[in-house]
């Protein structure tokens, strides 16, 4: 009897745990967002997070999109030249960068950089009782720690991605002009002609959602970190892994909503 029931029990338990953690994360996100819109807002902390999450991520996002744009031009040229459609290179570069690659790659890079550091910082604060100390000083940790990070994530990622879009297109331009021998005016005309506002906007909406997911995962795993160095270590890993997976899932969902 047990042998029959055990797989069913295990499946049931796993499913229950899965939904339980979705519930916990949702309620955590709800509390964080509630405190993000409810005054008072800690401007000083918010500004610090803008610098941490936005400004310091510029180099990594810039480099990622620059090389992505360059590779994209090279690869699509190789493909399109086989049926003499080289003119499409510019369009392929600009659409891929703005709609997909800039938001997704920037999101993943920021997940590694920012998600990990948020989880490690808040996790260490949990372990060293600093979060309890906040409570005893009548300061709500959601308002003081979580809300500024969520707001900064939601608002800075679109800006980062917009800059990434420009740098990515520039990367494709550099390769096309200096290595593949395109005429600059033709290339630029092809870039603009088929670009619609919705391509860029959808990318920025994605970026905003990804920024929320990355900071949420960092905060959630850090806040619920286990005891000791090991607890903080696994909180960091979980934050990065879960943020990356969620980015890929939500990328599909948002694309489906926008373009179907």
């Amino acid at each position, binding site marked *: 009897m047990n042998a029959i029931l055990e797989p069913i029990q295990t499946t049931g338990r796993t499913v229950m745990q899965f939904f339980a953690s979705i519930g916990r994360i949702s309620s955590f996100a709800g509390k964080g967002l509630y405190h993000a819109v409810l005054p008072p807002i800690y401007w000083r902390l918010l500004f610090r997070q803008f610098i941490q999450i936005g400004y310091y991520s510029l180099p990594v996002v810039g480099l990622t999109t620059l090389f992505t744009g360059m590779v994209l031009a090279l690869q699509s040229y190789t493909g399109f030249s086989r049926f003499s459609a080289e003119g499409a290179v510019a369009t392929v570069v600009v659409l891929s960068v703005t709609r997909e690659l800039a938001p997704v790659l920037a999101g993943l890079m920021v997940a590694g950089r920012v998600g990990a550091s948020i989880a490690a910082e808040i996790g260490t*604060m949990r372990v060293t009782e600093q979060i309890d100390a906040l*409570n*005893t000083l*009548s*300061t709500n940790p959601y308002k*003081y720690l979580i809300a500024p990070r969520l707001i900064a994530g939601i608002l800075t990622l679109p800006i980062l991605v917009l800059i990434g879009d420009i740098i990515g297109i520039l990367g494709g331009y550099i390769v096309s002009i200096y290595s593949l021998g395109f005429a600059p005016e033709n290339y630029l005309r092809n870039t603009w002609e088929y670009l619609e506002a919705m391509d860029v906007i959808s990318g920025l909406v994605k970026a905003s959602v990804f920024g929320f997911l990355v900071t949420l995962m960092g905060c959630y795993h850090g806040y619920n970190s286990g005891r000791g160095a090991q607890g903080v270590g696994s909180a960091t890993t979980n934050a990065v892994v879960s943020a990356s997976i969620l980015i890929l899932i939500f990328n599909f969902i948002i694309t489906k909503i926008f373009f179907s």
Partner: protein
Amino acid sequence: MTKKNKDIKIQLKDVCKSFGDNHVLCGASLDIHKGESVVIIGGSGTGKSVLLKSILGLIVPDSGTILVDGEDVTKLPIHKRDGIMQKFGMLFQGGALFDSLPVWENVAFGLLQNHAMPRKEAYGVAVEKLRSVGLGERVAKLYPAELSGGMQKRVSLARAIATDPEIIFFDEPTTGLDPIMADVINDLIVKATKELGATTLTITHDMASARKIADDVAMIYDGKIIWRGDAEGIENSGNAYVEQFIHGSANGPIAIAV
């Protein structure tokens, strides 16, 4: 005893808390009177910290009531809890200083956040509080990581008393310090609480510290307060558990799994 007639500041009634199968507190009851200094002694893992955190509302007990000035803190809505918390100051075992903030902002944290004091004024108060725990203004601009363990404890003490709280909790104030620094901290605690007229609750397993700070001593064992009496009477408690604990003997009714 005259102090028994004073108002009860904190009252615990049959507080129980379990984590899974581990019954940390079961039926803990304790009255703390206004202006009194109570020290709870007990071995590691007997529920001392859980008791403190339950009063602070950081842990919600499974059953029982905790009254602070007659209000049940276990059933308070969140917006009211902040008001109650302003009565409390707490010295954490590890200091729990915010390492992203300089020392003076740590000390003035409660003033800056809740009393919305201008930063300049708060700095003045912080320096004054630091001085009262024997630290100069030089320390104010340093970060917690740049301080020694003893100095961190003192900064943490300054933070606990900065908002002039009515109730102060000390979680193992002398653990991890050398005997001389421990005595310095004990003296500071006695001095600070006398000046504020605060009600204090300390948990410790350091008997020297307990003797120095306490008006009353309570012993916690197996999730209950099993003995309570004044600090002078502890040598003649007539309780086998207390005897064993204060003499630090491995033999007695308290069995420790090795």
